[in-house]
């Protein structure tokens, strides 16, 4: 019987069935972070539990670490207890921690792929809802809470009923300066924030074939915002060459064996999905959000929608969103003045994201009165960007160039905006108060955010560059 990629990963990782009927799925890799792991360590110690496979488990410091240059444990006073508890816990349980001074320090979802810890056809767990980022390499991620994290540490498995499958077929070709973020916001606008509830999404189609790996990571990153359990994209030649030579990726004879396995990890041509959604990406414009959930997104040339024209169940939320965002019906997105720009996060802080933003910025300056912050997704990205001189492009333009971490995405590290500010951000959530009390967040791609920084208002980055 023809199988989907999800079926294949499921069947190759199914350890057995629990007495309650749930499948026990083996977890190949597990990444922990300091915001949630310390509580699990505390409970495991109290219960006398051991970590089953510490060598398949890694720790990062990302949510609470300061982005200030020359940072240490105490640079973010609210982070110090988390950082130290993480250090103590990983040491106690024999888990490698990518500490502040480690070359592999960074955001879990950026670090895992870039050092080759996550590979096609794998299963992966992380106590963070954006775990599905790694789906861009063809791996199946499980985002989990703290109890689940304890379960994975103790058993190296997750007990779960198989979710339904949803294929999102993306047709057409992406135009210049339109990438994974724009595609994700387009899908979100179509299916909504609960549209994929109970499903794992496989993204496929010509637009996906065209996307580079880092764009695929961005798209899969936003699966959770669609309500999905997870999201992934079958690995192809681009994936294999992207992984080549990464520190934890297999080499030699192991790589030959792995490649053979990886190549079979794609949906069979006649495989059946529980649901399908098709979206044409030909002529897709850069997308920007106007509201307070990531599905409240429009092409940048759009205007703020009228709640009265929407379905009743969307009306209340829209009215509330417009009030919070201080937007009037019919206002064009282009021209909205912004006061802050953040380029960073597990969504859009890989090297290609910083490159495209730097291309837009190069030789220009941030508009007067706008505050700009760029925070690389990992210390490796930071080093690679600096080797290319991107840090100078950003700082010459007036941006602050920070140390790697989650930074202003969830404002858990001391970086935040001020009440009433309009902020364009390359992150994943425009929820009320997320980037600081009263901050009005517009989600966009790195190219769009960079152009807005220079213009001091939301602009169509394609016109912006054409104008010179």
């Amino acid at each position, binding site marked *: 019987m023809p199988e989907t990629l999800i079926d294949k990963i499921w069947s190759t990782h199914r350890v057995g069935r629990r007495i309650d009927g749930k499948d026990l799925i083996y977890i190949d890799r597990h990444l922990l972070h300091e915001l949630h792991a310390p509580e699990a360590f505390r409970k495991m110690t109290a219960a006398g539990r051991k970590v089953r496979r510490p060598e*398949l488990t890694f720790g990062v410091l990302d949510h609470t670490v300061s982005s200030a240059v020359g940072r240490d444990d105490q640079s973010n006073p609210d982070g110090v207890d988390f950082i130290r508890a993480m250090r103590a816990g990983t040491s106690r349980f024999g888990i490698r921690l990518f500490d502040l001074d480690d*070359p592999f320090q960074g955001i879990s979802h950026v670090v895992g792929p870039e050092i080759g810890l996550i590979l096609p056809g794998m299963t992966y767990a992380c106590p*963070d809802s954006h775990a599905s980022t790694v789906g861009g390499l063809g791996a199946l991620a499980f985002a989990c809470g703290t*109890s689940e994290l304890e379960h994975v540490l103790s058993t190296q498995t997750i007990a779960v009923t198989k979710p339904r499958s949803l294929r999102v077929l993306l047709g057409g070709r992406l135009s210049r300066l339109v990438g994974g973020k724009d595609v994700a916001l387009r899908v979100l606008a179509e299916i909504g924030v609960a549209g994929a509830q109970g499903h794992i999404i496989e993204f496929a189609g010509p637009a996906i074939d065209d996307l580079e790996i880092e764009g695929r990571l961005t798209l899969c990153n936003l699966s959770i915002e669609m309500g999905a359990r997870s999201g992934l994209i079958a690995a192809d030649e681009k994936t294999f060459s992207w992984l080549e030579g990464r520190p934890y990726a297999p080499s030699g004879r192991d790589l030959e*064996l792995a490649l053979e396995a990886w190549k079979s990890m794609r949906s069979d041509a006649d495989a059946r999905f529980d649901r399908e959604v098709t979206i044409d990406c030909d002529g897709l414009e850069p997308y920007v959000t106007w509201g307070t959930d990531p599905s409240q997104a429009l092409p940048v040339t759009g205007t703020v929608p009228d709640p009265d024209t929407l379905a009743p*169940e969307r009306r209340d939320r829209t009215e509330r969103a417009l009030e919070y965002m201080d937007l009037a019906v019919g206002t064009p997105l282009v021209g909205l003045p912004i006061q802050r720009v953040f380029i960073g996060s597990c969504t859009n802080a890989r090297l290609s994201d910083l490159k495209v933003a730097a291309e837009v910025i190069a030789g220009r300056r941030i508009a007067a009165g706008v505050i700009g912050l760029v925070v690389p997704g990992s210390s490796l990205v930071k080093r690679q960007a600096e080797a290319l001189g991107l840090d100078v492009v950003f700082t010459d333009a007036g941006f602050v160039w920070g140390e790697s971490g989650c930074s202003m995405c969830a404002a858990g590290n001391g970086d935040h905006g001020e009440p009433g500010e309009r902020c364009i951000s390359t992150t994943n959530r425009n929820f009320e108060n997320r980037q600081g009390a009263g901050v009005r967040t517009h989600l966009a791609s790195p190219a769009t955010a960079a152009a807005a920084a220079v213009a001091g208002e939301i602009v169509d980055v394609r016109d912006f560059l054409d104008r010179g």
Partner: protein
Amino acid sequence: MQPFQTVSGVAVAYLADDVNTDEITPVHRSLEPDFAELLFARRKRLADGSLDPSFPLNRAQFAKAEVLVAGRNFGCGSSRESAVWAMLAVGIKVIVARSFADIYRDNCLKNGLLPVVLVADDQDQLERDVIDADGASQAVVDLVTQTITSPTGTNFSFEMDAAERTALLEGLDDIGVSLREEGSIRAFELGLAIDSPWLIALPVATDID
């Protein structure tokens, strides 16, 4: 986990859709936060920091509410389990929502908080009953019989996966249930080592070239 026992308590309605976990519990700044204070920390307060008297959970008659009636896609966003612990910290033991975000529902089940979804017509009626009662009488939620009696006396029944129901009623240790299969886990790992050694035997890496 504590076994789930029949709840007889005040029901409160907060009916917005897509209530996210940032709203339920903003990122905590301490390893041992005050979860009751963290619950709806921003939502429940006005700009000047005082409690918003119009926010349902702030009203005196709902101070000891044990049942929360909610909208669609409740608990979307982050996987943070604090968004469940904070409910338990104020005494909420049951959430009846139009639908739940997947991870939030998992987190409820792992902490003995009962997530219920009624058929839409029943949910409409329950919402009306809870608003009409305004905290003056109690709702009863019985997981054994899978029934809810609204504060005004309407009876509803709800579906629940049999295994999830058993786990809640018996307060089963989820990790313990999985470890019954430890032999299978060990056998699976042996197979991995033979068939896919690269998955299980990692190279040593300290930096990139």
